[in-house]
């Protein structure tokens, strides 16, 4: 028995019935309501929306659950479990109206009380949610999460079964955006209280999204089945989705090429040219809401000298880096808030490249051919990242700067950055559709993730005023000013937004490239369905 295969059924000689069943299964792939097989980049560590931590878990959870707001196929914020909402004049009280036909997968109605329970559970210290701070904007959240106040003190209230009121500590116009993350998802109180931690097991989990959890073989696959009780179930075309933990992108690519996977979210970069030539209708490149940038350690000479920082910034050519070095449709970004952030127009004027000004700035700072500037540039190990850093070193050489490249594995790299052990370093931020999230990295109060320890009183004051402002236009105007003020001092050099390279079987529709890289299975189907 020891050596028995776990799936012995397939080894048995096939009888007529099995052959018919196999034929039916083969036909089902072409018929409406097929099962898609998606490579998800890794194993989910949890399917409890309040304890999740990884982007790949977000994808599964977005199929299983629905928050008050949700993202559509284009990555836009749309009503989710709430059909509408309104915000009080002062920006502090948000009132959500839940759908009349919102149901859990066991048939129980989704109520405002479920949401109250869920927000309290997220912030309850006993839940140990690693992303609890996503919703610190709610009044009392930080105190509850820090164990200084009981969960009942949280500013969330069920006015009636279908009306939920969320009270904020400070105005936060981006709340609808923030609620699309699993931290804002409801969990079924009646199931969680009965089963405890076991509620996320297949067969036990009750969810309110377009799909339910049918099976989960750790490191094998997660299978989701269509939820017939979902409020928009009639628009969901797939009967099931299987997510595979494809941690090795070479293995995932082989499986895609062999027809064993229908969608993969990443492939070896070296294959891009071949794929563009041979399988052009499979390749999907989409820029992601993100900013890759260089950060100067302003606490360390000579990078405390704004002229040196400006000279190094002016020597760089973003267009060259994106269109000649990376060549995968990356979007160059002269501003720190990437241009992909909708609803925000950066006021930062693109500058350079200008080697003459760069050289004269360096000369002013005391560097010339005799006494050339030497910088150590730290970056994250990886083929793409290395190409970019080599290009940067070459561009700096053209203004007489000598660059020493130093690479490290991702976690080690960021550990060094947080401790300020660097001169110039590659950094990146994967954010949301909210300019504040990027600009906060340049506030003196931010701490470790303001890697360069940049501090400017005017920037801090503008940011603080923005955070008190309820009116969105006025708030964005203050953020624009803060960004212009900060970038004039060049604490960072914004470079580009990264591209996600996916392979999608051409007969799949509903998969739209979007800057969130979110592709909810409820919008996917096979063309001709």
């Amino acid at each position, binding site marked *: 028995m*020891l*050596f*028995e*295969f*776990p*799936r012995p059924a*397939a*080894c048995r000689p096939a009888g007529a019935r099995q052959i018919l069943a196999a034929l039916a299964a083969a036909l089902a792939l072409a018929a409406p309501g097929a099962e898609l097989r998606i490579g998800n980049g890794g*194993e989910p*560590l*949890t*399917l*409890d929306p309040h*304890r999740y*931590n990884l982007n790949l878990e977000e994808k599964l959870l977005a199929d299983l659950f629905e928050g008050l707001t949700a993202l559509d196929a284009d990555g836009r914020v749309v009503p989710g479990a709430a059909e509408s909402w309104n915000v009080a004049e002062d920006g502090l009280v948000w009132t959500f109206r839940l759908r009349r036909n919102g149901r859990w997968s066991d048939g129980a109605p989704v109520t405002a009380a479920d949401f109250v329970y869920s927000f309290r559970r997220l912030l309850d*210290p*006993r*839940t*140990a*949610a*690693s992303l*609890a*701070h996503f919703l610190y904007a709610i009044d009392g959240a*930080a105190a509850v*999460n*820090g*164990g200084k106040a009981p969960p009942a003190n949280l500013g969330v209230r069920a006015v009636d079964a279908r009306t939920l009121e969320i009270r904020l500590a400070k105005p936060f116009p981006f709340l609808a955006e923030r609620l699309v993350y699993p931290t804002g998802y409801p969990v079924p109180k009646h199931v969680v209280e009965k089963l405890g*931690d076991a509620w*996320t*097991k297949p067969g036990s989990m009750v969810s309110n999204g377009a799909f339910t959890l049918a099976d*989960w*073989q*750790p*490191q*094998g696959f997660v299978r989701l089945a269509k939820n017939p009780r979902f409020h928009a179930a009639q628009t969901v075309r797939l009967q099931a989705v299987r997510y*595979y*933990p*494809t*941690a*090795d992108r*070479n*293995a*995932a690519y*082989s*499986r895609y*090429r*062999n*027809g*064993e996977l229908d969608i993969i979210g990443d492939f070896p970069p070296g294959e891009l040219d071949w794929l563009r030539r041979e399988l052009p209708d499979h390749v999907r490149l989409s820029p992601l809401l993100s900013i890759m940038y260089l950060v100067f350690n302003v606490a360390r000479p000579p990078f405390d000298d704004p002229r040196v920082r400006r000279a190094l910034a002016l020597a760089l050519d973003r267009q060259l880096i994106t269109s000649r070095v990376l060549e995968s449709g990356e979007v160059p970004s002269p501003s720190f808030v990437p241009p992909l952030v909708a609803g925000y127009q950066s006021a930062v004027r693109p500058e350079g490249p200008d080697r003459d000004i760069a050289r004269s700035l360096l000369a002013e700072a005391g560097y010339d051919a005799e006494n050339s500037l030497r910088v150590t540039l730290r970056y994250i190990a990886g083929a793409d990242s290395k190409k970019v850093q080599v290009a940067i070193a070459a561009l700096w050489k053209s203004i007489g700067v000598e660059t020493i490249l130093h690479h490290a594995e*991702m*976690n080690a790299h*960021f*550990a060094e950055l*947080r401790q300020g052990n660097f001169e110039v370093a590659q950094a990146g931020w994967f954010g949301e559709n909210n300019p504040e999230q990027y600009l906060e990295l340049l506030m003196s109060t931010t*701490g*470790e*993730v303001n890697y360069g320890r940049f501090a400017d009183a005017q920037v801090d004051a503008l940011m603080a005023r923005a955070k008190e402002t309820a009116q969105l236009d006025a708030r964005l105007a203050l953020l624009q000013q803060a960004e212009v003020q900060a970038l004039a001092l060049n604490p960072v050099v914004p470079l580009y937004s990264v591209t996600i390279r996916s392979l999608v079987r051409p007969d799949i529709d509903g998969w739209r490239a979007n800057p969130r890289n979110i592709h909810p299975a409820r919008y996917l189907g096979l063309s001709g369905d």
Partner: protein
Amino acid sequence: MTRYLLRRLAFALITLWVVVTVAFFLARAVPGGPFDGQRRLPPAVEANLRAAYHLDEPLLGQYVRYLGMLSRGDLGPSFRQKDFSVNELIAQGLPISLAVGGSALALALSLGVVGGTFAALARNRPRDRLLVVVATLGLAFPPIIVGPVLVLVFAVLLGWLPAGGYDSAKHYVLPVAALSLPYAAAFTRLARGSVAEVLARPHVRTARAKGLAPWRLVVRHVLPSALVPVISFAGPAAAALLAGSMVIEEVFSLPGLGRYFVQGALNRDYTLVTGAVVVYAALVLACNLLADLCHMRLEPRLRRG
């Protein structure tokens, strides 16, 4: 015999306890913790996480708690795979590793013994030379090279076999082949050497002179003693194969035990990595014991021990 077995089992238990203790403290001595990431967590959040997994208690208390759980057969909750206990993860991964490793071991042993015997019987003839060359090549190409090549040829180019997964017996063909190849080569070389040596012994010459049929000669008089070194090597090899090969499991997307080792260590998932070590140690001890018992059957001189 029974006393011998009992003594070996007692030793095995003590060894297991030492391994568990070393693994427990070593895992926690490595810099970094299970909740570290690119972004530092707010202090309140981190404190909540540490409390939930008893990491805020003194180390010795954690160790006693762990030994207590272990004595009840409970390997604890996984720190990172939050929805599963280590028992559940191992129960899911081990059968797959056993299936792949067991098949690879059986394949490698049969190929090795048959090939090695043939080579020894045809010593220094072209057949023997060819087998030696093939065996050397097999040793020179580790699974990390052979695996992707097999995938490229048999899955991507020819489309005969799946490139990964574990849904049917077909899915196991390529990983078993890739995994068994270096072991088959090692067994071939070992068997060839020891069969040749036994063939030169007087009792074999006598048997041959009596006109015994060659296959009976090999099975009755040569193999029992020639297999002793093969079995010695098979013990640890079996443990290594059965506990799951990280490389093979990555290349063929198999959810076996091997990847829990590496992932558990990389993610500082203390309970998972210690649990994997416990299972691995138990497998090594069991396989070695089994190999020793096989020895005693083959080598009567050892039985008195």
